[in-house]
């Protein structure tokens, strides 16, 4: 048993449900094959797309950490019927939120960003916080910064991608959505289908709602 600290999956599921709602709406509703718009407007759209997905990836790292920490040992101390649905959803969708950044215009900057943020979050949650006598307050205060600062940094990365990297790629005849050095997008697209996105939206939404009344998808079975 690894008695490691993490956020409670019961809290994580509410954040995840909101994130999946936004993700599903954008993924399914915003036209994927929209006509090219004016160059300036295209850049603005690209910036928000990059920034939105980058922010989502920061939450993805947190979701993965919550789920994997629980699976690593905290399950032995809890009634798994309440937490297991949360954990499965957090791990699966957290992974998707990270991969999606790399799928859509992933660059070496994205790889570095996700690596650094993951490292900092793991050290903060599993090394710094447990070394404190009173863990609760530092966790609450520190996590806000830990989510906000990477989001700010990713805003800068998004600008760099829109202003410097994308024009160079286009000049070289590549599309904006190409991979840096490998291409697994088609395989992953077969896993993360639209139907699966909708199914996970339904599951996260219901799980979040049930949690308010002390139930989970498993306790209903």
């Amino acid at each position, binding site marked *: 048993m690894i*008695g*490691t*600290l*993490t*956020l*409670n*999956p*019961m*809290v994580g599921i*509410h954040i995840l*449900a*909101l994130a999946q*709602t*936004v993700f*599903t*709406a954008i993924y*399914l*509703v915003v*036209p994927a094959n929209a006509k090219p718009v004016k160059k300036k407007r295209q850049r603005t759209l690209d910036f928000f797309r990059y920034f939105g997905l980058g922010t989502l990836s920061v939450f993805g790292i947190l979701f993965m950490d919550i789920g994997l*920490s*629980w699976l690593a040992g*905290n399950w*032995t*101390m*809890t*009634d798994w019927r*309440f937490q297991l649905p949360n954990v499965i959803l957090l791990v699966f969708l957290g992974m998707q939120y990270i991969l999606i950044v790399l799928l859509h215009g992933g660059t070496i900057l994205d790889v570095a960003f996700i690596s650094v943020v993951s490292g900092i979050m793991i050290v903060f949650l599993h090394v710094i916080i*447990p070394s*404190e*006598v*009173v*863990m*609760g*307050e530092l*966790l609450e205060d520190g996590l806000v910064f830990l989510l906000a600062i990477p989001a700010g940094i990713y805003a800068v990365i998004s600008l760099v991608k829109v202003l410097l990297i994308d024009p160079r790629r286009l000049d070289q005849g590549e599309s904006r959505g190409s991979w840096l050095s490998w291409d697994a997008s088609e395989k992953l697209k077969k896993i993360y289908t639209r139907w699966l996105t909708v199914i996970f*939206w339904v599951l996260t*939404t219901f799980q*979040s*709602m049930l*949690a*308010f*009344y*002390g*139930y989970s998808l498993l306790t209903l079975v």
Partner: protein
Amino acid sequence: MTSRSKRKEIITRSLLLALFTIPLPLFYGIYLTRYKGTPVPDTAWISWYDDPRHEVYVAWETNANTTGTVHFGTDPLNLVNSSVESMAVKFHVVNLTGLAPDTKYYYRIDQDGTTYTTGEFRTAPASQPEFTFGLFADTQQKVGPGWHGHTAKEIANRNYSFVAMVGDFVEDGEKFEWNDFFTKASTYLDTIPIVPVRGNHDKPRDLDDDGIDEYYFGNYFPQTVDSISGLNPHDTGEQFYFSFNWSSVHVQVLHFPEIDIDDFGEPGGLNPGDYNRSFTADQLAWLEADLTNAAAMPFRITLFHCPITGAGFYGPNYVLKEELLPILQSYNVTAVVSGHAHHYERGTLVNQTFPENPLTYFVVGCGGGLTDIGLRPVPETDVALASPCFTEVTANATYLEFTTYGFEGTVLDKFSVGA
């Protein structure tokens, strides 16, 4: 694309957008609106000061000032005794005195000529028969998992002499939170008395910014404020401590307001110097005197909200460890029960000065709020888990057995102590 098909696509996408984005925010909105609008429930509860063999109080709340009459007696069809409130109030407290030990009483509350609610209770025995009582804490709902309702239903199915709620009934102290607590607790309050322990979240707060603190805990449980009426000689207004005997167990309720560790380091909150004032002389003097008086009792259980130590977010409390623990151990207290940390824990506190008297501690903070995750067991920890649960204590003159149940009767932990 024609303008017609373009319009059709826009409508389809708009409908899809609504389909995916509306349900969750709508649910949150409805849930919070209903939660914040929770009305005052029609329920009453029984508690007591220091002698539940002969005297209890019945309390309830109304939306407007009313004058209530409590009819009570041993025959539900013939409630021969009655007690009338002297003035119209919203927070009602009526003392029922002259009771016989180990006797089942029924009561009916009348207001304005109509029956408000009914209930029953059993007074404490004069001898030491076997009995059971429940322990739980930290029912704070807020964005919690709604487990308090389940805990309440589990408790309602059990034949407890009383339940002790070891603090943090609410999160922010808002009125609707209290209404929510009593709505859920109403499933058992008509038959099971409640012993309140004040938690750090139950403190007085100026909720409406009028410069006057609202103190709902004190309104509901007048053990805190009955220095005004003189009913509890131990109460000093701000502090909250009392004790009583039930069969073979002496139960103490303590509160140390200055060591609400959540306030530590916050502006206007505690600073390290405040720790020196954590234990007022009068409470410590009372504690020792009370334990001296209870020396002949087979078991002594002390209830207070913030634990001495534990695997939760807050870690060990060195002030309690250094100043309170030696007293509890020197008087051979059987067990201490706390909440505050949102998990269940049992452990053994060994003291250098009194190694022959290790003290068993329990943390029962899984009563309804979000459970902690990522517990950090301390050397004293024997068992730690973060499931929704409550603890049942069975006692007679020779043994004390603690059984912790999850939902649906799952036994999570069992521990016995001999006299």
